[in-house]
């Protein structure tokens, strides 16, 4: 028990008096609204007291940082040894354009790189495919072959900086390019570090960049986990992501539950397919969460995430290594919380969301730029966003002590409540036969669609407020400079691609693609074949066409 009987009895007595007072006051000045709830519509009480957490056990539920259940953090030292990584998601236009932005960010004190690819790259198409028309470089960097990737990495010290790549269906291909560049520079694979997102389950659930059906998609992920475990030990081979689930309209509880259940699916699949021991690979599984605008809900969600994952790894999968029980995660502030109206207010929103991520103990953070609701971030806007993190780290004192909100009646109670509700979803998905079955039934997709629709209705009815959008609206529009990606980038990129196609060794390309196809058919690990193919300048689409050919294509069922 967290409190002595004496404290609980006192609290109970005092509560009665307080409640009597409330009744008197409420007659004269009633509450502004009948129901107070989080942005996810979780009802919040007027007051939290020792009674709300009377069943909490200090040792097993809260404990110390660096100790099971890791509620208070994975590391015993907190941010004193190292701040979270300032990692701004960046990519636009050509590889050269993005490389320039990366150098600007590094010069501004960014400590890790994060790559945004354009849609053709994300979906495994070359820039000149008819399906790719109009998309080149628009929402990220265009990569067709190793030539582009070499330009992207120009002047980037790959043995010193870690790079995250938001890439999913073609994750093996882009990671192969990263490995190939390292090899060409004489850097051993054991020395490079970074992350590939490589989380297909959340693509079917929310982000909708998919290529092959769920089962072969999960097989390809297993290949990367196995290859990383054996050859690239500092690489995070999956970033199990709730971010996109939340952006698609999920509640905090749904984000947490679906993400962690996805993680369990990957653990089970790697153990079953690759015969690896859980402790061989689980320490390199990483996570990625959203930090939305509801301050305490987000902090509690992140704390609950650590505790659930520790329990899952220890009790479900019998992990022995504490590192397997660590929930290590990147956080991004919520794009969907920003408003196109009065865009400068977005700086404030992002700062609060970033602070919540830090108080929740994130290991890495991207802060959105004020203009991201309108276009890709401009240089000026991205600098303010990066400075926001640096102000939190260096000025506010938020990093002085670990998990500073622990022990708050409200924070502990809400952490417990979010965990309980997440378990309900996890058990429900277990009963459906796991996440792949749940996705095939459309379960998480429809839960999210319901939540998104309900939220939009609450916004339209003024029950939920977004300042500048449905309250405190002004006619005076704030104009901000927008970054525009020139349509000419597409033609230039097609020229580059054609030049590569002319000069590469055709026989070597054909042979490496044939070998890859054979490997896919036999069910072997694709990674060595992928690295060989990209070194021969096979394009992203040529390799992905092999996958599509062998494994088939997935089509959006269009649920709403």
């Amino acid at each position: 028990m967290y409190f002595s009987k004496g404290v609980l009895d006192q609290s109970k007595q005092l509560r009665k008096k307080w409640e009597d007072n409330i009744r008197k006051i409420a007659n004269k000045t009633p509450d502004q609204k009948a129901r107070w709830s989080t942005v996810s519509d979780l009802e919040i009480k007027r007051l939290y007291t020792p009674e709300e957490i009377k069943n909490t056990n200090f040792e097993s539920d809260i404990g110390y940082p660096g100790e099971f259940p890791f509620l208070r953090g994975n590391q015993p030292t907190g941010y004193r040894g190292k701040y979270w990584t300032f990692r701004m998601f960046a990519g636009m236009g050509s590889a050269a354009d993005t490389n320039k932005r990366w150098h600007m960010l590094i010069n501004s004190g960014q400590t890790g790189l994060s790559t945004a690819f354009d849609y053709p790259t994300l979906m495994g198409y070359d820039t000149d495919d008819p399906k790719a028309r109009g998309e080149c470089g628009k929402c990220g960097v265009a990569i067709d072959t190793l030539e582009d990737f070499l330009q992207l990495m120009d002047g980037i010290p790959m043995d010193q900086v870690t790079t995250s790549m938001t890439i999913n269906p073609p994750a093996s291909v882009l990671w192969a390019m990263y490995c190939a560049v390292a090899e060409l520079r004489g850097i051993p694979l054991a020395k490079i570090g970074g992350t590939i997102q490589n989380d297909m389950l959340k693509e079917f659930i929310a982000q909708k960049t998919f290529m092959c059906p769920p089962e072969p998609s999960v097989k390809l992920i297993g290949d990367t986990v196995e290859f990383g475990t054996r050859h690239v030990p500092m690489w995070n081979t999956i970033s199990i992501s709730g971010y996109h689930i939340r952006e698609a309209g999920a509640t905090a509880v749904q984000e947490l539950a679906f993400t962690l259940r996805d993680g369990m699916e990957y653990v089970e699949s790697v153990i079953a397919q690759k015969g690896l021991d859980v402790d061989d690979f689980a320490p390199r599984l990483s996570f990625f969460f959203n930090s939305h605008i509801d301050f305490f809900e987000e902090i509690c969600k992140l704390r609950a995430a650590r505790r659930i994952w520790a329990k899952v790894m220890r009790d479900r999968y019998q992990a022995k290594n504490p590192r397997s029980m660590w929930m290590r995660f990147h956080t991004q502030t919520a794009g969907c919380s920003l408003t196109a109206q009065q865009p400068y207010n977005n700086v404030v929103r992002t700062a609060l969301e970033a602070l919540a991520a830090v108080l929740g103990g994130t290991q890495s953070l991207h802060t959105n730029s004020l203009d991201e609701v309108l276009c890709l971030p401009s240089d000026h806007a991205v600098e303010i966003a990066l400075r926001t993190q640096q102000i939190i780290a260096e000025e506010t004192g938020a990093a002085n002590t670990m998990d500073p909100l622990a022990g708050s009646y409200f924070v502990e109670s809400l952490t417990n409540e979010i965990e309980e509700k997440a378990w309900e979803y996890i058990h429900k998905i277990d009963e459906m036969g796991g996440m792949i079955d749940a996705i095939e039934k459309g379960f998480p997709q429809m839960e999210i669609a319901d939540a998104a629709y309900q939220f939009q209705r609450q916004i339209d009815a003024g029950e939920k407020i977004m300042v500048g959008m449905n309250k405190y609206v002004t006619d005076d529009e704030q104009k901000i400079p927008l970054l525009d990606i020139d349509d000419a980038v597409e033609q230039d990129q097609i020229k580059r691609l054609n030049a590569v196609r002319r000069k590469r060794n055709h026989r070597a390309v054909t042979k490496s693609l044939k070998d890859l196809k054979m490997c896919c058919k036999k069910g072997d690990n694709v990674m060595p074949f992928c690295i060989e193919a990209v070194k021969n300048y096979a394009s992203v689409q040529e390799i992905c066409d092999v996958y599509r050919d062998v494994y088939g294509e997935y089509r959006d069922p269009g649920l709403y």
Partner: protein
Amino acid sequence: MTERKIRIMVAKPGLDGHDRGARVLARCFRDAGFEVIYTGCHQTPEQIAVSAIQEDVDLVGLSCLSGAHRYLFPRVVELLKEKEAEDICVIGGGIIPEQDFEMLYHSGIKAIFTPGAHLDDIVDWVRQNVEPK
């Protein structure tokens, strides 16, 4: 004989996967009493034009958040025209910078709705501007 309902196709052209707005809108149109077809993500302009004609819709609502609207939206209108189906009204939404509105209107897009638009306002626009065939 009952009055024919307005038939709407909500479509996601291009490779963009941001479908929250499209799905919310599809449901909103359905709740408003329209007949709704939702294509799902990753449709080519050709696929959208062909299905719009086959499904005999009165309105196509395009949603794009990837920045590719300057090619994709006008292309859908152009294809409908080529197939002599210019009576199908086409509207668009998503992350569309204001500087692109004029070229989109000029290409034949009848209305553009961006973040912050109220669902009821979009429904009202449809009622006022689209006649069921």
